[in-house]
């Protein structure tokens, strides 16, 4: 086996001979690594979140469709029974029409809400820091970024959303046939310029979708919270019942009942106590999430034209990941003090005023002198909000990295 410390070198030497790529890098390099593999017609398995931004998700969705290959995002719970049951219960009309979902996680599990470090650390001998930075703006190495903590920094990660929302919101996205949101709003603990907040709340509104045979799909508001903020309890839930199952959960408010599920849709139950018996219309995955991707590859290689897609094929994981990435954008634009209106097809906010500006905090600067508090927050200069939003949606790649073009 050959080992490299730069994917570009490995791709240059081996991509054309390879059949498939597994990507488990930091969030910000998923897009380029997967896009190049898809453009070369390779099967791709990519860890969650699929990408850091909305545009990159759209790109992978379209490249995968064009390539006709087997793809899978690493939200392994999508291959589990919980997501299947959540979908089957809702599609069978067990809780009626869903107009509100509250979802949450108890994470992040890495430090967030930090100021950018000023100290520069020696780069570990085993780390190719330039390759890690990839298309992001260059910065000196500090061990707070890597290993492990990179997902708490805007340039490299997506915070608790990109981590747990990929598990916890997946049954929400799938069961409710969600597409692009039309409105987004975010709120958080102090919004730092460089690091994701310690806790945040995001509200996304989805328009009505086509009805299912047994249930209508009206406009629905999905609220996400993290960093320890747990949604308010649904009426009728037993005292002492913890909503947190395996790191979080989701509460579906229907016109007939309330459905509560854990992370990955695990351990679903109705607040009424009734136990639904809905037809099992979803495919059960009997092997591991990763092995199911291998199954799809084998079906394609065997010449099967009606091959079965994986549980988190990019045709679904791409649009779903846009939901996750939109949460990040809503939080970072909270200073606009408005409900953002989103044109999903064209990937643009339609109501940001032309001359609006946003800023974020560089330093908190709070200190106590002689027993008295001193407030000395340091902010970035205000920047044009439309331009800032455009960069959040589609980042400008640096250091010579160029994404393949968006297929028509």
């Amino acid at each position, binding site marked *: 086996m*050959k*080992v490299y*410390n730069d994917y570009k070198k490995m791709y240059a030497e081996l991509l054309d001979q*390879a059949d498939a790529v*597994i990507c*488990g890098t930091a969030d910000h390099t998923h897009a380029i690594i997967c896009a190049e593999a898809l453009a070369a017609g390779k099967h791709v398995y990519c*860890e969650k979140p699929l990408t850091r931004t909305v545009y990159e998700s759209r790109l992978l969705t379209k490249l995968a469709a064009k390539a006709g290959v087997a793809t899978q995002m690493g939200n*392994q719970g999508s291959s589990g029974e919980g997501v299947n049951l959540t979908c089957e219960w809702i599609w069978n009309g067990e809780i009626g029409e869903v107009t509100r979902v509250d979802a949450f996680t108890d994470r992040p599990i890495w430090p967030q809400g930090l100021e950018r470090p000023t100290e520069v650390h020696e780069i570990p001998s085993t780390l190719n820091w330039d390759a890690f930075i990839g298309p992001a703006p260059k910065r000196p190495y500090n061990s707070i970024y890597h290993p492990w903590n990179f997902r708490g920094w805007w340039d490299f990660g997506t915070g608790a959303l990109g981590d747990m929302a990929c598990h916890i919101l997946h049954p929400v996205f799938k069961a409710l046939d969600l597409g692009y949101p039309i409105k987004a709003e975010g709120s958080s603990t102090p919004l730092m310029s460089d690091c994701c907040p310690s806790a945040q709340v995001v509200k996304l509104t989805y328009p009505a979708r086509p009805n299912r045979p047994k249930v209508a799909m009206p406009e629905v508001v999905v609220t996400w919270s993290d960093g320890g903020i747990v949604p308010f309890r649904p009426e009728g839930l037993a005292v002492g019942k913890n909503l947190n199952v395996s790191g979080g959960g989701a509460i579906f408010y229907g016109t007939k009942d309330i459905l509560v599920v854990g992370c990955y849709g695990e351990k679903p139950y109705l607040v009424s106590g009734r136990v639904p018996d809905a037809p099992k219309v979803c495919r059960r995955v009997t092997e*591991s999430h990763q*092995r199911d991707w291998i199954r799809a590859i084998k079906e394609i290689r065997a010449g099967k034209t009606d091959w079965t897609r994986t549980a988190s094929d990019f045709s679904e994981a791409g649009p779903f990941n846009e939901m996750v990435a939109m949460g990040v954008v809503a939080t970072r634009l909270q200073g606009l003090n408005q409900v953002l209106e989103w044109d999903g097809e064209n990937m643009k906010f339609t109501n940001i005023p032309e001359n609006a500006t946003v800023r974020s905090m560089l330093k908190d600067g709070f200190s106590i002198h002689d027993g008295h508090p001193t407030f000395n927050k340091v902010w970035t200069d205000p920047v044009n909000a439309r331009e800032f939003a455009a960069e959040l949606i589609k980042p400008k790649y640096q250091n010579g990295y160029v994404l393949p073009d968006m297929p028509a």
Partner: protein
Amino acid sequence: MKDMSRRSFLKAGTAATAALAMAPADVLGKAKAKKNVQTGKIKLLGVGVGGRGHADINGVTYKSKAMSTRSSSPT
């Protein structure tokens, strides 16, 4: 670039990119020899194989579902 055994690679850990040629047992020799049908090993490149990527490679090679979806500490 250097050659490594799988064992020493897995020990090396941090921030590596790996090329693996894998042959899950049921991939070999089962596809029928039709025209335009590929058979044999699936040649796999792993990018970022220190933590989750490493677990995913294990997930590809082992059939137990428990290993990947029933972790008490989801990642």
